[in-house]
């Protein structure tokens, strides 16, 4: 069985990557209840209005009472965008997702861009084309700080074809250089909650050296930045910038950043934030 073979072959992953801790069900359950309440309140506030503007990215260190777990997370309140606001071809994604649930066929990832029921995705040559596929008025076009990238849009939904999340992604795949992934997340009015949690890291190993920084664009917009210092004896940093703009959360992750390239990576994040603010 070929897939088992893949799992066997990755048995010897770098042990530093195999962080271990037990499940934290108790913690997440209470969080989910709280989020559901928040979501209900947000839906009430939004009822009868045009969808609002994402704001208030909060980066914070967290701990889990009763456990040794600590970590950090990025939270943002996203407006729940009415599905009727999408005017691009993505409007048909819900039907495709419902079909996936009705005919669950294993989809090899190279013959299709979805592997599980619930996700329908397409690739695009440029971010502009991807944005046109989404077709959302007022959508701020993100920039990507490298010339070559792969771009896709994915819609996520349930068995009834209700799309609750749309994500645009651009990514730079490299070897021996800074890797980058851009994510733009939009929640729809089918989402169970308006609070979106990203960048969550929970581990026994904190307080790992994580640094939160804020950069303010010339236009006065906040870009929250999390810098994760090397966890083990490698030399790499992980740096992610978060910005709320329009009705979406924009994230630019820079991975495998050598420590001596910290300033370069920070400038990449600042330039990206400035460009997004100008759009």
């Amino acid at each position: 069985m070929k897939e088992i073979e893949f799992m066997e072959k990755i048995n010897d992953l770098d042990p530093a990557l195999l962080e271990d801790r037990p499940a934290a069900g108790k913690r997440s359950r209470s969080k989910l209840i709280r989020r559901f309440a928040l979501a209900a309140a947000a839906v009430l506030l939004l009822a009868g209005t045009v969808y609002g503007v994402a704001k208030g990215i909060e980066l914070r260190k967290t701990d889990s009472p009763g456990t040794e777990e600590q970590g950090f997370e990025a939270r943002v309140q996203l407006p729940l965008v009415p599905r009727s606001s999408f005017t691009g071809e993505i409007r048909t994604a819900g039907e495709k997702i419902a079909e996936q649930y009705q005919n669950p066929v294993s989809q090899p990832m190279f013959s299709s861009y979805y592997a599980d029921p619930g996700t329908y995705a397409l690739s695009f040559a440029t971010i502009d084309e991807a944005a046109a596929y989404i077709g959302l008025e007022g959508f701020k076009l993100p920039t990507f700080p490298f010339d070559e990238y792969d771009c896709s849009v994915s819609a996520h939904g349930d068995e009834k074809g209700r799309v609750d999340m749309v994500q645009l992604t651009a990514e730079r795949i490299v070897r021996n250089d800074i890797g980058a992934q851009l994510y733009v997340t939009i929640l729809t009015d089918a989402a169970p909650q308006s609070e979106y949690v990203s960048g969550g890291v929970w581990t026994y190993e904190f307080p790992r050296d994580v640094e939160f920084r804020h950069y303010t664009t010339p236009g006065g917009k906040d870009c929250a930045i999390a810098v994760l210092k090397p966890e083990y004896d490698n030399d790499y940093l992980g740096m992610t910038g978060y910005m709320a703009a329009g009705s979406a959360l924009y994230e630019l992750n820079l991975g495998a950043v050598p420590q001596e390239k910290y300033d370069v990576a920070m400038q990449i994040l600042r330039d990206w934030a400035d460009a997004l603010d100008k759009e």
Partner: protein
Amino acid sequence: MDDAGIVKLFLRRDEAAITAAAERYGSRLHALARNLLGSDADAEECVNDAWLEAWNRIPPHEPGDYLFAFLAKIVRAKALNRVKAMSAEKRSAELVSLTEELAGMLRSADDTEAAAEAKELAAAVSRWLRSVSEEKRRVFVRRYWYAESLQQIADRYGISESKVKSLLWRARRELAKQLEKEGYLP
């Protein structure tokens, strides 16, 4: 007892090493084996086999700070061997679902150029994991190394199952491109 203390017991050939390691990591190793095998009885046998192998490998091996990873790799390898020996019907539905997600991740069904290639592939996947966001890395490792269910991962990180799926989908796609670039895929 901490890892260093347990490793010292192993190195001194003190059988208390097994008891100490089992107290510290036994339940997590059992959970890993059960994720793959779908049965507590099989998982228990698998973990017991792993203690014997650990005993035989330390010394000369010294796992240092990575005792859990060292033990988990042994358990995982043994569990996967058992999975291969099982008939398709006996494999757990969760494992079947998980492995189907990985279709296309290797060049061909005959691609068994054995140990050297496996080592290179693991190194390539490790490199890629270091280049992605922390969140994606942890979710990927939980799914494809620890064989946890989508629900377990969602609970663990306090995120929705839909988000777990999204992260995994993107992770598979990015990894496939990386492997393609490095010559592991056509």
